[in-house]
């Protein structure tokens, strides 16, 4: 199967510090991929380059067979990439409905209202559509972000630590939601919660010091001595 997203030799330096170094990465359509690694491993820098928030120092990015390395973020989004922020970034003074409508309106001329209702219902926020987004709890703002991602009907959804701040019950609902979405969308998930990674991901990529340390199924990655040394042994032992 040809990859929906690939990188070749992707790297980024910040003032001499190599945050990401020579990453070759391939994501298949329909796949749920987790991206893990210790803090500072370059995960957010890596996905920021994928979506176009920061420019790579070197290397190339391909989406759906075409090179997108030089495209600005909004053009990549139009091609079918969607991104949810690590730090929630909703339109705090607008209603939930308008937040999601802004996400839906770019691709839809008609049926925006229906798409908004559906996206909000899928994350369980339909009842609160009229409320102001800034009044939501942190966890609910994260769900709103996901609803905004869904409303774009992307072919690739990049989620940067989506379960941060969610309660256990919400995490269970989140897992079910991601499985459902993955039927139509490739998902790239930066995640610290190991239970989410192990249960959801088809494959896991481990970044360490900006380089790919290991890649494989959750079980393979978990069994890798290098990964245990770098990451699992210290952070996810419990």
């Amino acid at each position: 199967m040809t990859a929906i997203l690939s990188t070749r030799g992707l790297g980024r330096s910040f003032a001499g510090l190599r945050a990401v170094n020579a990453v070759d990465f391939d994501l298949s359509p329909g796949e749920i991929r987790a991206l893990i690694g210790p803090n500072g491993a370059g995960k957010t820098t890596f996905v920021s380059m994928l979506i176009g928030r920061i420019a790579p120092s070197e290397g190339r990015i391909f989406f759906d067979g075409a090179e997108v390395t030089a495209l600005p973020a909004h053009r990549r989004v139009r091609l079918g990439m969607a991104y949810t922020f690590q730090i929630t970034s909703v339109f705090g003074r607008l209603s939930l409905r308008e937040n999601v409508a802004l996400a839906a309106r770019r691709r839809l001329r008609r049926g925006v209202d229906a798409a908004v209702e559906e996206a909000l219902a899928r994350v369980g926020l339909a009842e609160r559509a009229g409320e102001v987004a800034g009044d939501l709890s942190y966890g609910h703002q994260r769900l709103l972000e996901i609803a905004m991602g869904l409303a774009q009907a992307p072919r690739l959804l990049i989620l940067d630590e989506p379960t941060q701040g969610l309660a256990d019950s919400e995490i269970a609902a989140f897992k079910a939601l991601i499985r459902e979405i993955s039927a139509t969308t490739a998902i790239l998930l930066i995640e610290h919660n190991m239970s989410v990674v192990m249960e959801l991901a088809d494959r896991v990529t481990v970044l360490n010091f900006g380089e790919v340390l290991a890649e494989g199924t959750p079980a393979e990655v978990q069994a890798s001595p290098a990964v245990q040394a770098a990451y699992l042994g210290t952070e996810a032992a419990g």
Partner: protein
Amino acid sequence: MRRDYLVHGALLAALLVAHFLLPAYHHGVMARVMVLACFAIGYNVLFGYTGLLSLGHALFFAAGMYGAGMPMHLWGTGPGAAFAMGVLAATLVALVVGALALRTAGVAFMIVTLMFAQAGYLALLLASRWTGGDQGIVIAQAQRQLWSIDLSAEGPRYLAALVLFGVCLIASLALMRSRRGRVLIAIRENEERARLLGYDTFAMKLMAVTLSGTFAGVAGAGYGILFGYVGASFATVQYSIYPLLWVLLGGAGTILGPFLGTLFMYYLVDTASDLTSAYLLVVGVVLILLTLFAPGGIGGELRRRLWRAMP
């Protein structure tokens, strides 16, 4: 939706009724306020809705004014065509200034727009052969005739001002109700997020600057033609600050705010200067009080207390 248009239509109807009721002095003031409110409406599109603070809007106002006044003065162009030329001139100037100034943001954007406006002001003075320099251009009454209506007479002038204001008011309401208008609000709230929803935020901001310049041009061209004077004083930094104050007072990000602010400020200056020669002090104190106790302006307070969904 319908209610929005009803309320704003009601304001226009009230202004039409006022045409028959107002005493001569206030009738004249109101005509001026309505034209200047078009300027404020344009400023509000950029500042109140898109979140971009420009300190150079006098340039767009003056571009409209000179764009209309110079053809009338130099070539004897009629007021209709001259008005169109003024609006076009302001639109083009705004497009060019926007394309350059939008490479910056925040304070830098304020400074760059201010510098463009100052350069424009100095250019007007330097090109005095055509612009009249600091004397400006007086447009003769004989030239201010449109379809044999004397635009310099008080009645037609008021009605022409009302038409300009009505068109600008409804256009701004329609704009902010439209998909594009919603994106402008999204940019004001969180530009990065808007970009990552796939919106070309640079292009949208450029559209906002350009449209804002068009409104300013309507006001500038209208003011020059209706009141018969085109002067460099309208290109000074003072005329970049006025629309900011009008919009802040009236309520940034509300459709009615620009008009309310312009009206309020005009009468505030007028009343205070009747009472004391230190009228600017009075104006200053009122501005400070309003900022402290009604930070959303008059329109913001109306929205908070009376009508939460006010556009």
